[in-house]
Structures are given as structure tokens and as C-alpha cells.
């Protein structure tokens, strides 16, 4: 079966973001970019399905300007067979991304679409579920175990209070949580090989979808800073402060 893996180019998770002085957005000029960590887990899961003989072809896809080809090449180096870039210079809402992906799903007919549960920039946690709704597929979000069994996929989900396992009819959407797997590193020979793997570029405008933004970013500010408090010398002093100063214990 075919597996589609949508990925997103985001700021590297080790880099601390700065807000622009004019509060228009965060400042990403000259910052290190990477595959969104949850998307990397999705890439790894797809590659493992191929290695297990379950997936026959794994396809990475990203929506963005030319720079996201860098992340698509990384996905190819990690074991994806081919890549698709939907080209746009706009930063699109999750709903519009999902609509573009829906068209690709209709064309490629994958049995599984694996996405990261959220991106570490916008922190929306929406695209997978929206794509599931638009394609009419079931969804296994926040997955920690994915098992394809015949016409179904069983997904164990990280939920409040523990784990929930659901059975989904294929084709289905899966979004990854942290414990699903530990992504591999791309080896140098595979990085070289990835340069020759196919990468198709399709302009977003060719999909015939109204991509008008539905939300407007009014401003971005730094979070309120917490003031450092005091260092106490002993447990006695700590207990005394908590009782009499902070009044949070009795």
C-alpha cells in the first residue's frame, strides 16, 4: 500500500525564537530550519512500514516555497521514495493546507496518511484531523503504536489519563505522538542518493482551491516574564514561606 507523509519546515527546535520589534511576527531571518520533530516521526513510521513489507511506496509532501525542498530531500534521505512540493509563497491556514492535501490524496489514493500531531511553530494541532474530515477518513491522532491488520489499522493513542486503542477502516489518517518511534539519522550515502530521487513541484494555484486566509494575525508579543524569586537556605525556611508568605499550604 501507498503511504503519504505530509511534512512541515519549521524553526529548529533548539533555537529560541525572538519576536520582531514591530510585533508583526517572530523573526525567522537567518535561523536554522528543520523538519518539524513530529513530522520526522511520521517519516520514520512510514519508512518502517516499508521495511516491514507493509508499505510499497512512501511519499513525502510539503506545502511551501522553494526552501521546503531542503526538508523534502531530508525525508528522501531518510527513506521516502519520492517527494511532492506544493509551491506557494504564502503562509497558509491549516484548513487550506488540508484542502491542498485532500487533492493529492484523491490523486495518489494512499491507504495511510501519516502526519505529525502538531508543528512546533504555530502549535495548531489541526491539519491531520482536518484532512481526515475532508477525505471522509477515520483518524488515529496522537499515536504511540500503529498496527496495520488486513483492512484496518489499529492505533494506540496517547490520551489524558493513559492510552486508548481504536480500530480504523483503511484508508485512514494517523498523527504521531512522541513515543511512536525514535527517528533515525540520514547516512551520507543516503543523503547522496536522495539527490537523485524524484521531487515534483506543483504550484498551489493549479489546484483550483480558494486559498484566502480565514484568520488574521494582529500581533505577536513576547510572553510575560516571570520574576525569579528567592533562594531559601533550608527546608524549614521553605515550609515557613509556603505557609505564611505564599499561603499555598496550611
Amino acid at each position: 500500500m501507498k503511504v503519504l507523509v505530509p511534512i512541515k519546515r519549521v524553526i529548529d527546535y533548539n533555537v529560541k525564537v525572538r519576536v520582531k520589534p514591530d510585533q508583526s511576527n517572530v523573526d525567522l531571518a537567518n535561523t536554522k530550519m528543520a523538519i518539524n520533530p513530529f513530522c520526522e516521526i511520521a517519516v520514520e513510521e512510514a519508512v518502517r512500514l516499508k521495511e516491514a513489507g507493509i508499505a510499497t511506496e512512501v511519499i513525502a509532501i510539503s506545502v511551501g516555497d522553494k526552501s521546503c525542498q531542503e526538508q523534502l530531500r531530508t525525508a528522501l534521505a531518510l527513506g521516502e521514495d519520492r517527494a511532492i512540493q506544493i509551491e506557494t509563497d504564502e503562509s497558509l491556514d491549516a484548513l487550506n493546507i488540508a484542502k491542498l492535501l485532500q487533492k493529492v490524496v484523491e490523486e495518489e489514493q494512499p491507504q495511510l496518511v501519516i502526519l505529525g500531531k502538531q508543528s512546533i511553530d504555530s502549535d495548531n494541532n489541526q491539519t491531520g484531523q482536518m484532512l481526515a474530515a475532508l477525505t471522509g477518513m477515520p483518524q488515529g491522532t496522537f499515536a504511540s503504536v500503529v498496527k496495520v491488520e488486513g483492512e484496518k489499522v489499529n492505533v494506540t493513542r496517547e490520551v489524558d489519563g493513559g492510552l486508548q486503542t481504536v480500530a480504523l477502516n483503511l484508508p485512514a489518517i494517523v498523527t504521531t505522538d512522541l513515543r511512536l518511534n525514535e527517528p533515525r539519522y540520514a547516512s551520507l550515502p543516503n543523503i547522496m542518493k536522495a539527490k537523485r530521487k524524484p521531487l515534483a513541484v506543483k504550484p498551489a494555484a493549479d489546484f483550483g482551491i480558494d486559498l484566502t486566509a480565514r484568520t488574521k494575525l494582529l500581533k505577536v508579543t513576547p510572553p510575560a516574564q516571570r520574576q525569579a524569586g528567592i533562594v531559601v537556605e533550608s527546608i524549614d525556611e521553605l515550609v515557613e514561606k509556603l505557609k505564611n508568605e505564599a499561603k499555598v499550604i496550611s
Partner: protein
Amino acid sequence: MSILVIAEHDNSSLKTETLKTVGAAQKIGGDITLLVAGFNCQNAVEAASKVNGVSKVLVCDNAVYEHQLAENISLLVTELAADYEHILATALTTGKNFMPRVAALLDVSQISDIIDVESSDTFVRPIYAGNAIATVQSLDNKKVITVRTTGFDAVATDGTAEVINLDTVTDAGISSHVSDELTVSARPDLGAAGVIISGGRGMQNGDNFKLLDGIADKLGAAIGASRAAVDAGFVPNDMQVGQTGKIVAPDLYIAVGISGAIQHLAGMKDSKVIVAINKDPEAPIFQVADYGIVADLFDALPELESKL
């Protein structure tokens, strides 16, 4: 304006976070309806009918809603959506699961994880793991929103809402529930606890988390963990506090052997009072702690337990 809030519950009880989501709805302003979709959920319905500020409780009691499957719940909410300008769910794993599905079915954007309301169409939400705060305006005629409960106060529970039973059954028939593996604990939920004590990599192993038990018992606290402790396999992931785990804001948060990585701070920095116990005086956790103590946790914890 009319607002539909989808109740977060486990059929037998209403999650306290729902009270905060109703608080967010009150801040938007309008007539508030609460939807309880579940199975054999009379107890949750009874609790829902007492939530202040709610005028009506809609009840859909059917086996297809027992496990809150996103495929079924989203169809139900979409069907009810016509009467409401705002649809709100709590940003816990259930709401996060079905709500974007609702938004897409209604062909509107979702505003996720709001922490404040500026007006009926403008909301405040954290981005970049809380390292930036965005003010976002929705241009859609219908607003689909998930609420991060740490930003809002809970409403009281001495109201009397009208309960209306609906016989709407929306079964997508494409997914089914297999099993639950829920952590059984006598302690409060992380999301609802007034006091939380969390351990980090400094705990060294899972066994040492027992050192937190006595203190948690005395304070009625929930026990949490940093991602480092979860990644190291000390404790299960449902204990994780942080950007990729639970976002909490208790009255008292005690961080033990936690260095204070940015991703952990994102999950607890809105706590009212933060205490840090760490042997490294340079640990970043001290920069956000109201009270810090530089000490070996293996000495400090037994002493703290004995003095509470």
C-alpha cells in the same frame, strides 16, 4: 450571540476543565448551551445542568458516543452547529481530537488553545511553545475554538440549566473503540490538581519517584514529570508536564530534580507559586521559581515530607 460548549466528561463525571471552558464562553458573551454526548452519561448530565452561566444542556446519550470517537462526535456537532456563532471545546486530548474535524466539516478555520478573549472574533493564543503570544482575528462567520483552561477561571456549579434530550445518532461507521488502558490513581488529575509535585531526570530512576508519594499524600497533590524523566523511561507519558505533555497552572508547583528546559517551562510557568529543588544552582528552573532551594533531592525530599 449563541455559544455551544462541548462538555468534556467520562460519562460518569464532568471534567472540571469544562467549567473553565464555560468561563471562556462567558468572556466571549452570549447564551451558552452545553452539549453532553456520551453513553449512560446521566451523572455527567446532572453535573452539567448545575454549571453556572449555562442556559441549556443538550444530551445525546447513545452507544456511538461512548468513547468520544472523533468521527461520530464531529458529525453530531456539525449537525447542531447551525444555531451557534461560537463552538468551544476544551483543549484536552478529546477536544483536540474531534474539534478540527468539526471546523473542516463546517469549512471554517479553528483557533486552537486560546488563553484569552479580546473580542467576539479576536483571541490570544501561545505559539512556538509559549515563547511568543499571538493575537489572532477569525474572519469566519462561525468561530470554532479550543480553550486552554489555564487561561480562564472556573465558573461555579450552583446553576439550574434546562436539560433537553436529543435523539440524534450520527454514526460514521468507519472507526471503533478497541480498548482503554487508563492509569488508575487515587490522586487528583494533573489538570485539576491545586498542587503538583513533579520529578525530572534528577530522580535517577522510576523507583525514586516513590519519594514524591508521601509529600503528594500530605498536600493532596498530583504527581507529574518532565519530558526528560519520561524519555528516560522512569514514568509513563501521561505524567508529562510540558509543551508536549500536559499544560498545568496549579496554585503550587514543586519541581524536583528538573533543570527547567524551555519545553517543561511552557507547561507549568503559569502556576501561581513555583518551588524548585535542585542541586545545581545554575539550573534555569531557578529563574522562574518563587522559592528555590539548592539541595540534593535525596536529602531534601524526606525532610520536606517530615515537616509538612
